[in-house]
C-alpha cells in the first residue's frame, strides 16, 4: 500500500496515493497535466524541468514526490496571473528572449527564483542564476537582458 502524500502545487493542496518514488516531473506532467516543466535530459543537466520548491529552484526530474511531501511547489502555470509574471512576460517579449520556447518555462522559474532572492541583480548574478538552465537558440544574452530589464521595471514586486 502506498501511503498518501500531500503536496501543495501552484497553491492547491494535492493528495496522492502514487508511488513515493515517482519523479516530481512525471507527477506534474502525467497526473496533474501541468506541462510547463519539460523533460530535456532527465538527469538534472538542462533545467527545462525547473520548478520552485519552497523558494529554491530545483530540477523536478531529480526529485521524487515522496521527498517533497508537505512542500510548496510552483511551476510557470502557478506563476501566471501574478504581477511578477506579467513583468517577466513583457520583458522576455521586448528583449527577444524566446525562440523555440522549450527552455522558457524553466528560465522564467529561474528568473523568479533569482529575483526573489536578489532584487537588484548584477549581470553576473543573472548569469549565475540561469547557469543551470541550458538554451540552444538564444545564446543567453537576450534572456539575461530580459531578466535585468524585469528587475528594473518590476522594482518592489519581488
Amino acid at each position: 500500500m502506498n501511503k498518501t502524500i500531500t503536496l501543495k502545487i501552484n497553491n492547491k493542496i494535492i493528495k496522492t496515493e502514487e508511488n513515493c518514488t515517482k519523479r516530481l516531473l512525471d507527477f506534474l506532467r502525467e497526473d496533474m497535466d501541468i506541462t510547463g516543466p519539460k523533460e530535456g535530459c532527465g538527469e538534472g543537466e538542462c533545467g527545462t524541468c525547473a520548478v520552485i520548491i519552497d523558494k529554491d529552484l530545483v530540477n523536478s526530474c531529480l526529485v521524487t514526490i515522496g521527498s517533497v511531501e508537505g512542500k510548496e511547489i510552483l511551476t510557470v502555470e502557478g506563476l501566471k496571473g501574478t504581477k511578477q509574471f506579467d513583468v517577466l512576460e513583457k520583458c522576455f517579449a521586448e528583449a527577444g528572449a524566446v525562440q523555440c520556447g522549450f527552455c522558457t518555462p524553466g528560465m522564467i522559474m529561474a528568473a523568479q527564483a533569482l529575483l526573489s532572492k536578489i532584487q537588484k541583480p548584477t549581470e553576473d548574478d543573472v548569469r549565475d542564476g540561469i547557469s543551470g538552465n541550458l538554451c540552444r537558440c538564444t545564446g543567453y544574452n537576450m534572456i539575461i537582458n530580459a531578466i535585468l530589464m524585469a528587475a528594473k521595471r518590476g522594482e518592489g514586486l519581488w
Partner: protein
Amino acid sequence: MDSIRKSVVKADHKIKVDGSAKYIADIKFNNRLHAKTLRSEKAKAIIKSILIPDLKDGYYVVEGKDVPGLNKVKVIQNDMPIFADKEVNYIGEPILLVVGPKLEEVIKILNEIKVEYEEDIPVFDMRESKDIFAKYEYEKGNIKDTFKKASRVIEEEFYTGYQEQAYLETQGVVGTYKDGKTSVYGTMQCPYYVKNAVIQALGCNEDEVRIVQTTTGGGFGGKEDYPSLIGSQVAVAAYKTKKTVRLVLERGEDISYSTKRHPALLKYKSALDEKNNIIGMDVDITLDGGAYATLSSVVLQRSLLCAIGVYNIPNIKVNGKVVKTNTPPNGAFRGFGGPQSIFAIETHMAHVAKEIKCTPLEFKNKYLVKTNDDTSTGGKFSYEVKLKEMIEKAEKISDFSEKYKKYSNKKGIIRKGIGMSIFLHGCGFTGSGERDLIKAKVKLLKYEDGIIEILVANTDMGQGLKTTFKKIVAKVLDKNYEDIIYKNPDTDRVPDSGPTAASRSIMVVGKLLERAANRLKENWIEGEEQIIEENYKHPDLIPWDIEKFNGDAYPSYSWGINVVEVEVNTITASTEVTGIYTVFDIGIPIDETIMEGQIQGGVIQGLGYASCENMECEDGKLKQHSITDYIIPTSKDVVNIKNVLVDNPCDLGPFGAKGAGELTLVGTAPAYADAIENALSVKVNKIPITPEWIMEAITNE
C-alpha cells in the same frame, strides 16, 4: 506605417512563456501505445535471427516485414532501412519497435529479445573507407601548370569534429490510424519530407497520409531528415496495430543515434609566386558520412562551394568525397557543410599570411571577391559585395588591428588574443534544387470576413517564421500582423512550399508570400472567399550543372565578419571569451529583434563548435551520450555580442531580405582559432580547440 524591420512581439510569444504551447510530449493522445527501439549492438553484421519472446495481449513487435511498402527511408538515395532486417551497419541502428500500453512491460520485452549476428569487419576511420557515397570535383584555370611554376608551396591538413544539434526538445513523433488514414504528428522541420517518406513506407496513396508539425523545440538541421526515419517507423506501427503509437526519444538515445554535423578532413595546398602572391589553391575534402547516405551528397556540395571562402584565387581545384563508415549517419546541421570549409580556408589563409610574414587581415584583403567577380564555379557575384565596408565596421567596433598587434608575441600567465573571420553563405538550395526538386508553392486564403491565412509547409522551430511570414503578408496588405493566421503546417491543408532548411524560408518562401499578397491586394474582392496561389520562379542565373559543378550555385549570398577576443590562462589552459563583435549583410532584416536572436544564438553555437563541443567516436560508439558529457555553452561561457548590420537589399527576397539563419554560425570557429593563435603563437589545425589541446600546445612551446 512602420518599416518592416521594426521589432514586434513574436506571434507565439505568450504561449511559450506561460507554458501552454504544446510540444509533442505534452499532447495527450487517448489510448496511445508506447514504443521503444531495439537497436543494433554491432557496427557491421548480418542479422542471423531475432528471437522474440511470447508477447502479452496488446503488445506488438514492429519490424521490417511489417513495412507494407518499401523498407527504406526516402531521403535522397533509398539506402537506409526503416527497420534493419538483413544487416546492420552501425551500433544503434534501429531493428524493430516494441509497442504496447505499459512502458515498463515494453522495456522488459525489449530486454528479452535476442538478436543473433554474424559479424563482419567494420570501418570506423574515414581515411580508410573505400566506400564513397558521393564525389565531385571542379577546377578553375590550370592547377597543374600553376603548381609547376610556383616558387613555393604551402600545404596543410585540417580536421573538424562532430557537432550535435542539442535542440532542447528531443526527437518525437506520434503515429495514428483512423478510417484508412495514417497520420504522424511530431517535432520536425519538413512535413512534406516526412509525408513522402511515409507514402513510400506504406506504399499507399498521397491522400492516405497526413503529417502535422507540432510546436518544435529547436531543430538546427537535426529535424530536417531524421523525422523521416522515426516518422516512417511510427506510421508503420500505427498501420499495423491500428492504434496510436508514441515514440519520444530520451536524450541519451537522441545524442547517440540521431544525425550530426559531418566530421571532416580538409587538405589545403597553396601555390605562391616569387612575390608571395597566391596563384593557385588545391583543396581536397573528405566528409565522414556515417553508415547511410542521408543528405550527405548535398552537404558535400556546400562544403566544396565554400572551399575557397570569400577569395578570388586565379587557379583552383577543389575535389571532395563523402565516405561511408560504420558509425551513426551524419546529416544536416545549420551551415550544412559550410562551417567545416570556412574554418579551413580562413585558417589556411591566416597560416599562409604568417609564413610570408604578413598579418592575416592584410593578406586576406588582397584576395577578397568583389561585385561582379566570378564565383569559384564560374557563376557571378552579381549582387553588391560590401566586404570592405564590413571590415571597416568590424575594425571600428572591435579595434581589431590595434589589439591584434598589441596581443602578438606576448609572454606571461594570462594571454590575450583576438581573431577575425570573413565568410559568406549561399542563400537557398544548392544549384538548381529550388527549380528542379522543390518547386515551392504557397497559398494565401482570404476568408469572407477579410481574415487572411498563410498556407505553407514551412515550420517555426524557434527562428521566428510565425512572426516574420505574418509581417511580410501584413505589410503588403496594410494589416496588423496579429490578424494574419499561420498555423503549424498540416499537409492536408497546406501546399508543399518546401523544407525549412538551407536559409531559404525568408528569401524564397517569403518572396512567394510577398508576391501572393500583392496579387491578393490587386484582386481583392470584398466579402468573398479568395485563394491566391504562387509558384516558384527561378531567377535569371548562369545555369547550374551538377556534373561539371559549374554555374551559379546560389542566387545570392549573405556575408559576415566575426571578431572573437579571448584570454587564455597558460597554467590551467582555460580560455575565457572576453569579446565578440560581428558585422552581417543579410540584405534587410524582416524583424530586428528576431535577427538579433539569430545572430546571438548562431554565433554562440559556432563558439561551442570551436571550443567545448567535443564528440568522439571510438569503435563505432560515440563517447559522449548525455548533456553532461557533451558540453554546450552555458550563460557563464558567453559574453554580450556587439553586432552591426550592413543594409544591402536584394530584390530576390521580400523587402530586400536574404538568408540569415545559417550564416550566423559559420564564422565563429575560424575567428576563435585565429584568436587562440594570436594569444599563444601556436598553429591551430583542428576544432574543437579543447583545454587539453591548448595544454599540449603550451607544453610543446
